[in-house]
């Protein structure tokens, strides 16, 4: 969300760093040898005096973005202390609202988006997954993952990998100081920032559910979610946003294309491969039970995504407005792009296609929303709509994995498209932090997430397999998960 000190790292050490990361992640060992310029963070922390003092109320690029724009000299620190950051009620109001919007994305948004797509006998079980995940991640966040992701580890070298235990149980969350993160001072209280970030931690595993819908055990879901939020989401969030080593790479990711979407998409692919396809796939009619639910879900995702993307400006400012505009344009373009390709390919423009395209656009514009201009957003949307259509319709069938509701096809692929295109379309006129941008850097930025997410997700699935078990029995699958797992049924 905060486009942190992104533009300092030079290309060389970065790519070497990543190579070792890929290796290390495969071995589940954390590399400690490459500094990766984490030390630039303090310099990036000081708000540029000129911006901060000349336009205190204007706040166009905002304190959120300004660290990246600051010369990394450290000389601006005195100016910053002369004009100390304060909590701004307007910024805080928007972030409180954004937290509510992003929570609404998961429940009821995503629950309905997915719930409408399964067969009727599984609709309760499917919406129950989003609901349960919301509850489980809230508690892991409270207990430890907020601290792991956003805690300030007293040891700078350890801090490159995790945030430490200082905020376990939300200890030491301040009631009166503006929140400081990775060296930058925001204009909102820490509780608000913590809540906003929690809603991101909630939606990410909920997105994964699309891949294993209609066959995953509920007990496995609870355990999987708990472990995944601790061992996959929290570290990656720390590396990118919490002051960890990925934040310094120069990767542009405004609102979480990598941490949220590529991460969830890859995890989904692993789940789909490990679980195997649903019984009857290719033979039974697996038509969505209720596309009105899916439409409601897609719409609430769309509306709520304003909190996701525009909220990632961490303030009520012009950057938030631009992010909102980019979100809207890319989403509309992707909805029409998917529809057009489908119309040409299958002779029919479907509602599910438009809704899927819209979500693909939302995903793809996520990393770009605060960096590109509207024309860039248009292109991102057009490409993402067509690209995700191809992945959901063609790739899936070609490789014969059963990514039931296209968690990988839309979030993985869409997130990847968006990450790369952010490197193409970033426009410094929208956000000075996007001045330096490169497709290669963006690509490298994705690799760490992909490897870590893929490997650790697999390990967690193995843990579940030998404790709760992964998949319902064939009889339960035929009967439907609603009755089999929850003793409930739709009576309409």
């Amino acid at each position: 969300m905060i486009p942190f000190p992104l533009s300092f790292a030079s290309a060389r050490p970065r790519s070497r760093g990543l190579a070792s990361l890929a290796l290390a992640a495969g071995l589940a060992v954390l590399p400690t040898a490459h500094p990766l310029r984490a030390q630039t963070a303090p310099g990036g922390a000081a708000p540029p005096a000129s911006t901060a003092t000349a336009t205190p109320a204007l706040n166009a690029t905002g304190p959120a973005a300004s660290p990246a724009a600051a010369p990394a000299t450290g000389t601006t620190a005195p100016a910053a202390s002369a004009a100390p950051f304060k909590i701004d009620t307007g910024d805080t109001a928007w972030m409180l609202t954004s937290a509510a919007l992003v929570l609404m994305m998961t429940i009821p948004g995503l629950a309905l988006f997915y719930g409408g797509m399964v067969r009727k006998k599984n609709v309760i079980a499917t919406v129950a997954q989003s609901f349960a995940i919301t509850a489980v991640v809230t508690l892991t966040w409270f207990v430890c993952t907020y601290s792991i992701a956003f805690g300030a580890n007293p040891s700078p070298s350890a801090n490159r990998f995790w945030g430490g235990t200082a905020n376990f149980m939300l200890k030491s969350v301040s009631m009166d100081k503006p929140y400081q993160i990775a060296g930058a001072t925001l204009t909102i209280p820490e509780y608000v920032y913590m809540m906003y970030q929690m809603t991101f931690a909630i939606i990410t595993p909920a997105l994964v559910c699309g891949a294993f819908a209609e066959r995953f055990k509920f007990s496995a879901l609870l355990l999987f979610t708990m472990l995944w939020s601790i061992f996959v989401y929290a570290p990656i969030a720390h590396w990118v946003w919490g002051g960890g080593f990925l934040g310094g790479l120069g990767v542009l990711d405004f609102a979480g294309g990598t941490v949220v979407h590529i991460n969830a998409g890859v995890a989904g692919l692993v789940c789909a491969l490990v679980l195997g396809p649903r019984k009857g796939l290719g033979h039974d009619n697996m038509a969505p039970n209720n596309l009105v639910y899916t439409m409601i879900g897609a719409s609430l995702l769309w509306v709520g995504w304003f909190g996701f993307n525009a909220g990632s400006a961490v303030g009520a400012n012009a950057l938030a407005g631009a992010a909102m505009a980019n979100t809207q344009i890319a989403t509309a373009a992707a909805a029409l792009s998917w529809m057009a390709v489908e119309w040409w390919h299958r002779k029919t423009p479907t509602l599910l296609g438009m809704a899927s395209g819209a979500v693909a656009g939302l995903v793809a514009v996520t990393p770009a929303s605060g960096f590109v201009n509207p024309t860039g957003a248009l292109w991102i949307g057009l490409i993402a709509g067509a690209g995700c259509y191809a992945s959901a319709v063609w790739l899936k069938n070609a490789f014969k994995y059963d990514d039931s509701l296209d968690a990988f096809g839309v979030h993985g692929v869409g997130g990847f498209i968006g990450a790369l295109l952010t490197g193409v379309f970033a426009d410094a006129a929208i956000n000075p932090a996007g001045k330096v941008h490169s497709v290669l850097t963006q690509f490298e930025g994705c690799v760490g997430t992909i490897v870590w997410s893929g490997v650790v997700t697999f390990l967690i699935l193995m843990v579940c397999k030998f404790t709760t078990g992964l998949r319902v029995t064939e009889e339960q699958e035929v009967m439907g998960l609603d009755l089999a797992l929850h003793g409930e049924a739709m009576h309409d």
Partner: protein
Amino acid sequence: MAVIKPFKVDDVRESLTAAGVDGLTITEVKGYGRQKGQTEIYRGAEYAINFLPKVKVEVVVADDLVERAVEIIRAAAHTGKIGDGKVFVLDVEKAVRIRTGETGGAAL
């Protein structure tokens, strides 16, 4: 018993009541036959819909009315397009009105 197109239900009911039939029972069913179904499309997967929505009309009438009832249904449900459906005649041995216990023709 007849299987007809859903939008013809009201016509059939009206024609039958005009002919003095006082009661009938309908059921939503799905029919498979010569009429080609639609295709449903979901994220590229096409499902041929083999079963089309039809309505089953069950009407029990006195023996002497059977011929007329069949003819009435046929006429009212006719569109001339494939899928119009069928009328099947079955023998009902006995009819009882639950409310009164009347049997036979009086029960209809």
